């Protein structure tokens, strides 16, 4: 279970949110909403452990993630704004190396399958530079298919995807939830996942 307790986020001398508490349990999808600059990405980065909250703490199965560190990172998959894809590596290499950095060695065959499933059949061996923006996003998203993480943290996963890819991504998300996974995501797009009640966390309007 992911639990955040009285989080406060300060950027520069602005307080973006304060006293933010929520929890995510197995099978939950938490949709973080809010205007631009309301601190959505900051919240997600806090949940990954990249950013330290100004106040409060984040717990994973009852323990502070700063204490757990590696144990928590193993259980978590984060796909951020920046895809984390190297233009000079092929889609296949990108996927394999990104998984390896998370302690998950996947065989070439698994990688081929995942890329095929996400709709990159025939493009596995192209340098990522040669792919379109949407295809590049798919290489990043392919990590979800090979990942064994319980908690997925996704920042705008639907950006730059066409309708077919959006549908497919929704299926992938639904599958993950049905396996008792957890998802925290932000998006400005409409999406629907059948049989899942999506919980909404609204960070509201940004103060100007």
């Amino acid at each position, binding site marked *: 279970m992911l639990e955040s307790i009285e989080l406060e986020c*300060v*950027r*520069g*001398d602005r307080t973006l949110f304060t006293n933010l508490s929520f929890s995510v349990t197995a099978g939950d999808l938490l949709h973080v909403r809010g205007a631009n600059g309301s601190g959505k990405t900051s919240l997600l980065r806090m949940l990954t452990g990249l950013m*330290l909250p100004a106040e409060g703490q984040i717990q994973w199965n009852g323990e502070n993630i700063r204490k757990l560190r590696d144990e928590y990172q193993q259980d978590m998959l984060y796909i951020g704004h920046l895809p984390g894809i190297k233009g000079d590596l092929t889609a296949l290499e990108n996927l394999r190396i990104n998984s390896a950095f998370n302690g998950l060695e996947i065989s070439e065959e698994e990688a081929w399958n995942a890329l095929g499933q996400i709709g990159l059949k025939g493009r596995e061996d192209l340098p990522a530079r040669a792919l379109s923006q949407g295809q590049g996003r798919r290489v990043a998203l392919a990590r979800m298919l090979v990942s064994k993480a319980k908690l997925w943290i996704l920042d705008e996963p639907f950006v730059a995807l066409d309708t077919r890819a959006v549908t497919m991504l929704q299926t992938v998300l639904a599958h993950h939830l049905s396996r008792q996974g957890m998802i925290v995501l932000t998006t400005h797009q409409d999406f629907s996942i059948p049989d899942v009640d999506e919980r909404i966390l609204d960070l509201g309007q940004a103060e100007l």
Partner: protein
Amino acid sequence: MKIFTKAYWLQWSSPKTFYPTAGKMIPWFMISGLILTIIGLYYSFFVAPTDYQQGESYRIMFIHVPAAWMSMWLYFVMCIYASIGLIWRTRLSDMMAGAIAPTGAIFTFIALWTGSLWGKPTWGTYWVWDARLTSELILLFLYFGFIALRAAIDDPQRAARASALLALVGVINLPIIYFSVKWWNTLHQGASISIDSAPTMAATMFTAMLLMTFAFWMYSIGIALMRVRNEILEKEKNASWVQELLRDGK
């Protein structure tokens, strides 16, 4: 006892409590610094005897040596505050580290400047690559690096933590640098004259030097507190207690 409780100590780390207390302390440090300077200078110029080798020119030592001591001591204190800020994430210690740096850099500069003024009549040149002068110069670079990194990063949290880490790297390296420079200096001894040939010290000379050191020390604390107060006001400008303070015009 109240002073043994954690809460008692924690309250001093809150900018709100610290601001008025620091305000009350500043005059004391500044005035004692001034008085010590006057006595110290009197000792330096009128009580301490004329040196039989160097005549009167050696008297610049009474500024030079205390400034050099302070430059090193302040770097050390700055690193302690920086590491406290890095480990316990206390804003006040970050501010203290940042407030000490300019004063430390100024004392380093004074030490170099007076050193070179002293060098002219003594060795006939403004600059010698003496081990101590060279290390002092490198110390000045380290101060500059700290100040520049702090200034270059926009986010105050990140600036404080990054510069704190840099200060720690610097303090680990400082002895290595000093030792290397000293070694280098003995290797190339022929050309230079060592500062070690300073005159044997009379008791009054030592007193004068101590007085000046304490004077500089008091001044450093006073000025650092003033800088921290300014920074508190700037960072907490939206806090209610600052608003009240400004309204009351104090």
